[in-house]
């Protein structure tokens, strides 16, 4: 497979790993690196990287799993929508198991709600066209990567006057979340591995505040093992040289200014919400998108009466500390006992990209590290 196999080449990867061991010996201290994107967390475990790297490198799994950060109240809203007579709710597969206060969408489906898994928002629009007597609501969530397709779909619905289609918007923005993590008391992250897909849309300039205001290296990375290892090497070089810059390892996909068309689409459809509740992180100002008032006819929040309750996270759950890097998955009170992939309490356990689920499924028994710095 082109553009994949090259970046999984075992010899090249081993060479990078050797170089990382050498630079860590030179750096001679422990480093805490936050990978923001859930896709990175997944790849790190899937390829068994932790066991190959020096013990002095600690990965902190950041808030970039879009499914993990959706709060219970929003899931309850979605479930409420799905139970409205005549409504078909469409969404991505891994949202189905996210627990709300009254259970997940998977359970709502089993009780008779018409909930369908789609692979793109356009699929939901097609369902609306095919079934004009249903009102089809697309449960939209995700970071800047998944926002432009939602925007394009909504504009298509408007242009084609598809009246029985609406979007329940939960799109979030990555930078306010990074800001919130940086401002958290006791935060001791040394550097960031920046999101690859999100950066292909927004570019790399918006991350400058991390380097400028917080003096932390920030390297945007691709998703293959060689990408991640290279990005890690770039991070460690910055630390050795005492630099704090935004660098781009993923140049085959990410341009400095991002994707202008996608940015225009997003701006045409969405406006920034004053506040949005994040699972684990609480309310973060300016951290999510809402549909512009002139498109209210396609906005599920405007069309339906939703409970819109702000719910606290389950008390036992320590997802917030895990998302901020203050706690490791296994340090959570309920990890692996009350909270398991079968019966998740916190969303970090729901998606395969969630820090806890990734650790639970892949990480155990893989932590026999080479002792070093």
């Amino acid at each position, binding site marked *: 497979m082109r553009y994949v196999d090259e970046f999984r080449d075992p010899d090249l990867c081993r060479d990078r790993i050797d170089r990382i061991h050498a630079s860590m010996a030179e750096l001679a201290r422990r480093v805490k690196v936050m990978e923001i994107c859930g*896709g990175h967390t997944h790849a790190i475990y899937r390829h068994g990287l932790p066991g190959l790297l020096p013990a002095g490198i600690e990965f902190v799994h950041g808030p970039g799993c879009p499914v993990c950060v959706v709060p219970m109240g929003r899931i309850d809203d979605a479930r409420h929508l799905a139970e409205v007579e005549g409504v078909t709710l469409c969404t991505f597969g*891994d949202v189905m198991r996210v627990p709300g206060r009254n259970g997940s969408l998977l359970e709502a489906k*089993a009780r008779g709600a018409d909930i369908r898994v789609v*692979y*793109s928002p356009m699929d939901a629009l097609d369902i609306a066209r095919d079934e004009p007597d249903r009102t089809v609501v697309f449960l939209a969530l995700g970071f800047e990567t998944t926002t432009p397709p939602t925007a394009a779909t909504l504009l298509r619905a408007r242009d084609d006057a598809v009246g029985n289609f609406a979007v329940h918007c939960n799109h979030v923005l990555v930078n306010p979340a990074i800001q919130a993590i940086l401002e958290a008391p006791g935060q001791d992250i040394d550097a960031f591995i920046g999101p690859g897909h999100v950066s292909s849309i927004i570019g790399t300039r918006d991350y400058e505040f991390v380097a400028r205001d917080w003096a932390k290296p920030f390297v945007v990375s691709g998703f293959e093992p060689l990408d991640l290892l290279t990005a890690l090497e770039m991070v460690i070089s910055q630390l050795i040289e005492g630099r704090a810059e935004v660098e781009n390892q993923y140049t085959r996909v990410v341009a400095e200014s991002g994707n202008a068309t996608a940015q225009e689409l997003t701006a045409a459809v969405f406006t920034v919400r004053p506040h949005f509740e994040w699972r684990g992180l609480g309310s973060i100002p300016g951290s999510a998108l809402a549909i512009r008032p002139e498109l209210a006819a396609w906005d599920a929040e405007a069309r339906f009466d939703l409970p819109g309750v702000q719910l606290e996270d389950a008390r036992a759950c320590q997802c917030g500390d895990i998302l901020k890097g203050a706690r*490791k998955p296994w340090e959570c009170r309920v990890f692996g006992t009350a909270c398991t992939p079968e019966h998740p309490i916190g969303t970090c356990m729901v998606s*395969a990209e969630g820090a806890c689920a990734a650790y639970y499924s892949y990480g*155990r028994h893989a932590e026999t590290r080479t002792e070093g710095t």
Partner: protein
Amino acid sequence: MTGSEEHVLRSIEARRRTKPRVTDATVTTAHGAGGKAQETLLTALFLEAYGSEQLRLQDDGAVLDTSRGARLVFTTDSFVVTPRVFPGGSLGRLAVFGTVNDLAVMGADPRWLAVSFLLEEGFDMDELRGLVADMSAATREAGVEIVTGDTKVVERGKGDGVYVNTAGIGLLPDHVMLGADQVRAGDRVIVSGPIGDHGTAVMLARGELALEGNVESDCAPLAAIVRSLLGAVPHTRWMRDPTRGGLASACCELSGACGLGVHLLEERIAVRPAVRAACELLGLDPLYVANEGTLVAVVPADAADTAVRAIAAHDIGRDAAVVGTIEPEPGGLVLLETALGGTRVVDRLVGDPLPRIC
């Protein structure tokens, strides 16, 4: 690993060994997906109620001792698939081969099938004709005979066109001694060909993904391959056809049942480029994608080469390879050595593998 981390991991392991309970209020699709939810349903509800020793073994079929000394293997399976015809197979072929393969991997010579149809009022007669013709051709291919059956018609709207159930009986040769309890540390794990073809072919054939690819289901009878393998390596320890849940789930079942560790080597496990590409796009792991004509077998280490040759003599087994070993530690777990030399745990799925959002 720090002390407290170790403590947490130990308590998780202890918890995993406790008896499962069904806590869900309703049946969800996860209960039929071959993962942990289904496992819980089987052990905590069905096994608890039926209590049969045979059932407790959770094999692909039951071994029955008759008064005359002959041993029979008996199994059943129900089939639903959308679409009903897909590249490389069809509902009819699946319904025959699924049951034939369950008998074959128990070491039996598949002989007789029973077929039940649940038909929905309004189902197209020509399609039914095609389905029956497919089944008839498949029985000839697999060397079995349909000897009894049943037909029910439900009202329109009360069924999804057609559901097929088949049950089968096979004869178990005297010398065959298969089972997870036969597996020993040092044994080798063999897979008969590339994995994930069936699941990927069906996903692509549904046309929901706007992806096109030349992937054909591996849908095929395994009886002939199994005969060759058991002929060449009579001390074969254990076999499965890794259908729903894929190779990963079959290995998890094995490690759970034998209490030993299964170590797989990622680079030895063949995956067709088109299957890998489709899975990559959908965020699925081919290890968990269904197969319908692939054999996974455990054989003693000194017989591994003989076993691979026996399987590779068949067209559908030509890519057979040793993909892993049985190790004493960690007991009850499946580990995968990645192509880079890293290690990860291969765990059971919770429910259906769900495509990831990004």
